[in-house]
């Protein structure tokens, strides 16, 4: 498999431009699918907004970060009866290496789900080899 998740936040120190967030965050659950020409990552990130999502690909590592706004002022008048989720930012990183074409990576955000399309590098795409006649 070409996609390997960066297991924890102690990601390689080689990349100082993409720091791990200092604020608390949670890992969004993901589905990763492989198609003939691409990998697709779908991440559940409810409560964030398209403009608050930051996706970076650097030195073979894909980093996804989504900021979640704190509750509106009017909510503060309410009494919390039960809380199972907090407005916590999202963060997750994947070590992908050279298996994707970094310039063609695209993403959409809809209904709280971020979908990242990672086209495979040319060398990974299946090629049909014709047999030539002598």
């Amino acid at each position, binding site marked *: 498999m070409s996609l390997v998740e960066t297991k924890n936040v102690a990601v390689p120190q080689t990349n100082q431009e993409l720091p791990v967030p200092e604020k608390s965050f949670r890992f969004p659950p*993901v*589905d990763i*699918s492989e198609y003939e020409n691409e990998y697709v990552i779908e991440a559940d990130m409810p409560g964030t907004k398209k403009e608050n999502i930051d996706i970076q690909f650097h030195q073979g590592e894909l980093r996804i970060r989504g900021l979640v706004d704190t509750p509106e002022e009017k909510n503060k008048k309410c009494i919390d009866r039960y809380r199972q989720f907090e407005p916590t930012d999202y963060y997750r990183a994947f070590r992908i290496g050279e298996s994707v074409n970094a310039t063609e990576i695209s993403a959409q955000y809809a209904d709280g789900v971020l979908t990242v399309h990672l086209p495979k590098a040319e060398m990974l795409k299946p090629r049909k080899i014709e047999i030539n006649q002598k």
Partner: protein
Amino acid sequence: MYSELVYPHPFSRELFRRLNQFLAMPTINETEWPFGSLSSGELATNVREDEDAFYVEMEVPGIKPEEIDLSIIGTELQVKITRSPAKESKNGRYLRRERVFGNTVRTITLPIDSAPKEMDATIDSGILCVRLRKPEEAKVQKITVNPK
């Protein structure tokens, strides 16, 4: 429950003491309001309350409004999610699958004696927000203190 007599080693004792402690923890159905029943594919839920209404918020990423069925049964709010089958094409395969799939039902029992007056619901960026207006008798009655 595991008996300490069967596992006399100090390490085992400590291990099973902790295990027993864990097993003795209340399950989700035994916790106090607003938990009602909880089925597989848990929907993370927050419940808030103000003078007029209860606000139930649920994380429902990837769910379309037409896949959500909300109903009031007495003083219970039932949220039923019928997810469309996975859109994975025949050419694709999953390398990792962590997101919840399949159908889900969650019931929240409201701490009131009669059914909520009215309900409206919105969905924004994968968060469902249901507003349940309290019946008159459940609202806080303000009493004015008059001078003699």
